[in-house]
């Protein structure tokens, strides 16, 4: 009947497979078609199907179908979900608060405080009037086209998420730089985080948290964006000149003094490059996260796609580009200042 019958017959496993009749479980589409048309499915050697779960199932009922696998995964996840939630929920609650508070503050402050404040921050970080002018023009434009609120929401989310990325990423990077074992353990995890398509994070997170909670998108953004800051902190510290470290040892520095007095300052250019990339990646993710109710410019992009509002889509896309330019320039200016001061 099925292509792989001979294996089970040959190995004498027919009994293990259950009765020879194919009963129970829905049939595959091909079988169904074959049955209704009343024709026997003749398979030539050329068309021999891969011995996949479904094809083996055809020959032997004891082999599960591939949809049993996916539904098994789902059931497994749902089973641990509740206990996972008990642990993860309180741990991530501060993230929800932080996001809510930041969103509230940045929208509650009137524009005539907020925009000058952002200009001031740009100046403090980059020490360049050109940069301040760029910030003023970009935010002025976005406010002018009535995207001010959306822009502030996006910015609030990025600030919170990037801050948390740095808060956790730098220590993780330091731990990696100090121990080869930790590094070997972390690298596959980081590779996975970086290569998984961002949509894939969202799926289990939706099961875990309710869509109304900000931490849902917060976690998705952080998981996606934390990788560069970890990697570059690790790299930066490992790249610190061995001779300088030796000098620090030779003059009797403690490990702590070495870390804060030598390694971190000398790794700072790399760490800042990591922060820059982390911010850029949060921005990319914040757009995708609007699928799971993250507010901000991403919502407009989504509206553009969903209801084919071309103008809205393009304009909000431009807004995201402007934000990206500002964030990139400001962090790069900070980086340039560090580089100039230590060469």
């Amino acid at each position, binding site marked *: 009947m099925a292509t792989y019958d001979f294996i089970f017959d040959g190995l004498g496993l027919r009994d293990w497979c259950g009765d020879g009749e194919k009963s129970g479980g829905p049939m595959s589409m091909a079988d169904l078609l074959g049955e209704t048309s009343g024709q026997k499915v003749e398979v030539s050697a050329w068309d021999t199907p891969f011995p996949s779960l479904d094809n083996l199932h055809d020959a032997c009922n004891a082999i599960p179908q591939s949809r049993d696998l996916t539904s098994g995964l789902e059931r497994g996840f749902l089973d641990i979900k509740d206990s996972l939630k008990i642990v993860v929920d309180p741990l991530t609650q501060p993230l929800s608060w932080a996001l809510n508070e930041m969103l509230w503050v940045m929208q509650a402050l009137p524009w005539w405080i907020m925009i000058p404040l952002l200009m001031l921050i740009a100046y403090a970080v980059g020490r360049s009037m050109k940069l301040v002018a760029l910030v003023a023009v970009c935010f002025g434009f976005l406010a002018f086209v009535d995207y001010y609120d959306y822009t502030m929401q996006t910015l609030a989310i990025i600030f919170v998420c990037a801050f948390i990325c740095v808060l956790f990423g730098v220590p993780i990077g330091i731990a990696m730089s100090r121990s080869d074992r930790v590094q070997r353990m972390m690298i596959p995890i980081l590779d996975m985080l970086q290569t998984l398509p961002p949509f894939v994070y969202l799926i289990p997170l939706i099961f875990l948290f309710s869509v109304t909670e900000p931490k849902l998108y917060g976690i998705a953004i952080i998981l996606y964006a934390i990788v560069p800051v970890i990697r570059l902190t690790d790299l930066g510290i490992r790249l610190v000149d061995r*001779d*300088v470290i030796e*000098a620090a040892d*030779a*003059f*009797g520095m403690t490990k702590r003094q070495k870390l804060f007095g030598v390694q971190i300052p000398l790794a700072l250019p790399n760490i800042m490059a990591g922060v820059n990339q982390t911010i850029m990646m949060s921005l990319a993710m914040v757009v995708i996260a609007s699928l799971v109710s993250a507010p901000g410019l991403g919502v407009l992009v989504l509206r553009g796609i969903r209801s084919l509002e071309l103008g809205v889509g393009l304009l909000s896309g431009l807004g995201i580009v402007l934000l990206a330019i500002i964030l990139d320039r400001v962090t790069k200016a900070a980086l340039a200042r560090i580089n100039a001061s230590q060469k």
Partner: protein
Amino acid sequence: MSDEIKIKIRNLYKIFGDKPQMALAYVRNGMGKTELLAEHNHVLGLNNINVDMPAGKTTVIMGLSGSGKSTLIRHLNRLIDPSAGEVLVNGDDILSYNDKQLRDLRQHHMSMVFQKFALFPHRTVLENAGLAPSIEGMGKGKYQKDARKWLARVGLEGQDDQYPHQLSGGMQQRVGIARALTSNSDIMLMDEAFSALDPLIRTDMQNLLIELQAELAKTVVFITHDLDESLKLADHLVILKDGFVVQQGEPQHILLNPADPYIEAFVSDINRARVLRVRSVMRQTTEAMGEISGEVDHDANLESLIERSGGDTTNRYRVMKGGQQVGILEMTDLVRSLVPRGGSSDPDAARRAG
């Protein structure tokens, strides 16, 4: 000056590899560096080193590249731990030190100057010079007087707020020396401190070190692969080859009595007239001797005497030390001492022998 021994190294072995203790057994049974590497894949860094380093003097450790000089000096402040053996500083076994004692040793008793300077690129010259006090938690206000004093002493006034990359190599190494001096430690370790500098600056720095030594009388351990440099600076010379000590002693003595062909080849192509002193080639006697052409100080080098005699080999000089005659120097002895034993003048001979 006393003959007190500041640093004693006893039966020191260092083997790089996964199982140094296993390899150590082979080395103790006489296996050499090449065999050990070929048969057991371990690198023999140091092989049964015994050295006494006198207090207040300069001990120079010399050897070709890979002979284990850097490895040896790093045992003195335990940047590297040995596979076996003892290192005694002021009579204390530093291998028994815990972290705290070790830091104290490094902060207060030993400072180090590096071949590649190893200054902190993110700190100013003044902050670099004040590294040792800053590690103890002293603020800039407190240590700056001391640090400025030593910077000035090494010839770096008014550069306080520069960053290392703004200085030339020679100036950077001066900062390195000031950094070591500011720690006020009585032992100074210098790993090829002048090797990265060009010849003129290098001579300057050697002279600076000699001046400082005359003034401060620190116990200096100086590493070099340059024989001229070692003869200029050394009170005690240790020659390393493949991780073991080939010969050690007073430099003049080594020059005149090389222990093996390796050293003979090494010393064959230096300017002996400039390096050798009258005291090393004179005949010791307090008796007056026939006809004397003049008096000469015992510490004068042969070159100056040759110039004075106008090349006349029949002359004979009275050698004086502190107004007293200590010996007689025949010019014929002097001329003979200029030719190295073995007579090789091939500059590559040292390398071939090594």
